[in-house]
């Protein structure tokens, strides 16, 4: 193992050690915990920067190793993971920095940072994983850290419920993921990505099988990246502290599904049917989420639906253009990470400043009080809505271009872009402009430096992350076949922004009322009914059957007792009766033996 091989291991294990240190050593020492955690995140960032310059490497240790089943724990540093490392550690570091202030007065700050480091470890594990099993392991671990962080304020009932919901939805996705892994493994005989790549010949012998396997693996991504119909956990996950939302539920973890799909792009490419289904699911998610976002009032929820929508975009992109280097999907993931993190942190700053007020209709006029926040937030909004020249424009353009070949999908993608511009502009206008609509909004103020610095840095990245970076993601450089998609995208941006501006400028309350969108297509209610109607009813029935079974057992015991009791009545004490029974026995046995 040479020095270059150590760096990825360092990146992976550094947060783990930090987490263990914090959780077991600095439990009571909140200040130290925050410092240690942030420092470690910084080291991670430095390490990732170093790793970015390295040649691809791949080292592993044997975790389970027996004939027929080898599961290594390996780190694979390549084109895809190098960039993803940067995204994760970069945003991770900024969020850590931001959190030192945001969580300053939290009574279990060290727990928060411990879990945050644990999350970093898990996420980096996904990024670096060289095989499916290891990815699954870290997949589950990010699930747990996400569970822990969403439930950070576990004394609130909603937080606990949201955490549970997130974990459960992911588990459902992981059910398919694991099954997909099993199917691929049983055919290819290996779980490593390289091994699978080598075994494509075997895998393609049964296209149906391959399609099914890929779609099952995609289930994992559906859970983690909150694709329809497993998306409902993500908005609820906003119960967690806002830095968590920024890091996990906007920039990195939810993107893990997309990253994983990019990892297996070579497989998706083998199955057009699977690719198309993936693309459609992404498209549906993006449009539904965008529609829902238009009617939300909670600043974090709007951003959450926006995240959903953008994740749908990326998934659609994977389906449309599976590219081992990531393709437009990873490009969008990359840019989206910055501006969405920016938006969340900005929202966090607002919330922090307004003493946990999250309703945009109770804000207003914040641009006057929170200059840095409002400017960076505006930049983020523009980047997200696809304002030409900003990062989001380029990546979104790449996706639209990829969708151009499939007109229905293109239409959906375009509508989504339009809606994105609409609801983001709505958010900005309602929250930051106009009059202050609450007492808290009057006292808004910019936050301390550790919170604003990340905003500024992210804003800069949100502006320039799209410049000249596209080629990094494209394994073969596609000529811009047509400029029409780009023009249409600009149109979408402009229409959306304009519509929102005209509709919301100067309004004090929601002028539109679309209950369907506001209530998220009633999906939560439907799921609730399904869960209550199936799982709980089934559980109830099962419990009844079980009491029946133990009742039968008990009954058997009682029956034995009862028969014994009846038999005992033969023993009525009269010797004449005894000889009568004796005689009956004699006659019966003789009949049985002699005459039968």
């Amino acid at each position, binding site marked *: 193992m040479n020095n270059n091989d150590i760096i990825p291991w360092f990146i992976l294990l550094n947060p783990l050690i930090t987490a263990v240190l914090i959780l077991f050593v600095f439990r009571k020492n909140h200040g130290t915990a925050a410092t240690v955690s942030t420092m470690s995140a910084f080291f991670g960032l430095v390490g990732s920067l170093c790793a970015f310059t390295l040649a691809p490497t791949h080292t592993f240790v044997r975790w389970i190793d027996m004939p027929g089943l080898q599961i290594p724990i390996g780190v694979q540093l390549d084109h895809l993971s190098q960039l993803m490392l940067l995204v994760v550690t970069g945003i991770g570091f900024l969020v850590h920095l931001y959190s030192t202030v945001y969580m300053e007065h939290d009574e279990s700050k060290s727990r928060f940072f411990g879990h945050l480091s644990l999350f970093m470890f898990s996420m980096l594990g996904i990024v670096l994983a060289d095989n499916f099993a290891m990815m699954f392991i870290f997949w589950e671990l990010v699930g747990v850290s996400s569970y822990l962080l969403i439930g950070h304020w576990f004394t609130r009932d909603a937080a606990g419920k949201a955490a549970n919901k997130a974990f459960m939805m992911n588990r459902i996705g992981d059910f398919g993921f694991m099954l997909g892994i099993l199917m691929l493994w049983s055919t290819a005989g290996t779980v490593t990505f390289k091994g699978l790549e080598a075994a494509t010949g075997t895998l393609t012998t049964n296209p149906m099988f391959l399609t099914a396997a890929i779609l099952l693996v995609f289930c994992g991504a559906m859970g983690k990246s909150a694709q329809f119909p497993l998306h409902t956990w993500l908005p609820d996950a906003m119960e967690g502290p806002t830095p968590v939302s920024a890091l996990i539920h906007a920039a990195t973890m939810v993107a893990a599904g997309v990253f994983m799909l990019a990892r297996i792009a070579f497989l998706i490419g083998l199955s057009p049917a699977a690719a198309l289904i993936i693309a459609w699911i992404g498209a549906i998610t993006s449009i539904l989420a965008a529609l829902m976002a238009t009617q939300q009032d909670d600043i974090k929820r709007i951003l959450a639906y926006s995240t959903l929508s953008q994740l749908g975009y990326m998934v659609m992109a994977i389906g449309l253009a599976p590219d081992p280097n990531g393709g437009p999907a990873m490009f969008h993931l990359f840019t989206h990470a910055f501006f969405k993190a920016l938006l969340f942190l900005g929202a966090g700053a607002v919330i922090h400043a307004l003493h946990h007020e999250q309703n945009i209709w109770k804000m207003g006029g914040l641009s006057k009080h929170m200059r840095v926040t409002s400017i960076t937030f505006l930049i983020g909004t523009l980047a997200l809505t696809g304002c030409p020249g900003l990062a989001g424009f380029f990546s979104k353009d790449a996706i639209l271009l990829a969708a151009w070949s499939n007109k229905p999908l293109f239409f959906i993608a375009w509508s989504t872009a339009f809606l994105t511009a609409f609801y983001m502009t709505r958010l900005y206008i309602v929250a930051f402009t106009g009059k202050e609509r609450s007492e808290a909004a009057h006292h808004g103020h910019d936050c301390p430096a550790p919170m604003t610095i990340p905003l500024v840095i992210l804003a800069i990245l949100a502006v320039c992350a799209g410049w000249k970076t596209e080629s990094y993601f494209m394994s073969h450089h596609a000529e811009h076949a047509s400029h029409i998609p780009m023009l249409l995208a600009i149109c979408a941006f402009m229409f959306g922004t304009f519509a929102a501006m005209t509709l919301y400028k100067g309004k004090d309350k929601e002028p539109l009322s679309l209950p369907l969108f506001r209530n998220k297509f009633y999906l939560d209610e439907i799921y609730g009914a399904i869960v209550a109607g199936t799982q709980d009813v089934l559980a109830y029935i099962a419990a009844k059957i079980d009491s029946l079974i133990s009742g039968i057992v008990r009954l058997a015991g009682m029956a034995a007792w009862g028969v014994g009791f009846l038999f005992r009545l033969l023993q009525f004490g009269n010797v*004449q*009766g005894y000889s*009568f029974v004796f*005689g*009956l026995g*004699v*006659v019966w046995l*003789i*009949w049985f033996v*002699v*005459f039968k």
Partner: protein
Amino acid sequence: MNPILFYLFSILMLGFGIAVVANRSPVASAMSLVVSFFCLAALYVGLDAYFLASIQVVVYAGAVMVLFLFIIMLLDLKAEQRRKFNKLAIGGGALVALAFAAQLLGVLGGHPRGDKPFPELKLPIGESLNDLQHVGETLFSLHTLPFQIIGVLILVATIGVIVISKRELK
């Protein structure tokens, strides 16, 4: 044996046997039993078992019956004569006994070997069967051990009778 004598004694024996069961008075039952055993002894004679016939008379009709009568008198059991019949018990018991008898008939029907007459004995001309000698020889040569055990048995029975019927211990 003369078949007529056989039938006579058999019928008498069975008749008095039934009388044992049917009589309400214990004394009458005991007397019927004596008669029945006498007839049985007669049947033994018909089977050339003279020794056993005499034993039967001596032991049963003599000793055992006296014992029975003695006890019946001692306990003065007449008082108990009048009691309600338990019809169910009687019906059931009779049914079982009848069934057993029927089965016995069935068994005898499946016993072709027994349909043959008794074989003639090979006796020296002019001598009658000295069964006492033969029984004695068998008893004291072949079955000495059981015989001695019988001795112990009687000892045990004697002790038992004493132990159980003693009134007070001094």
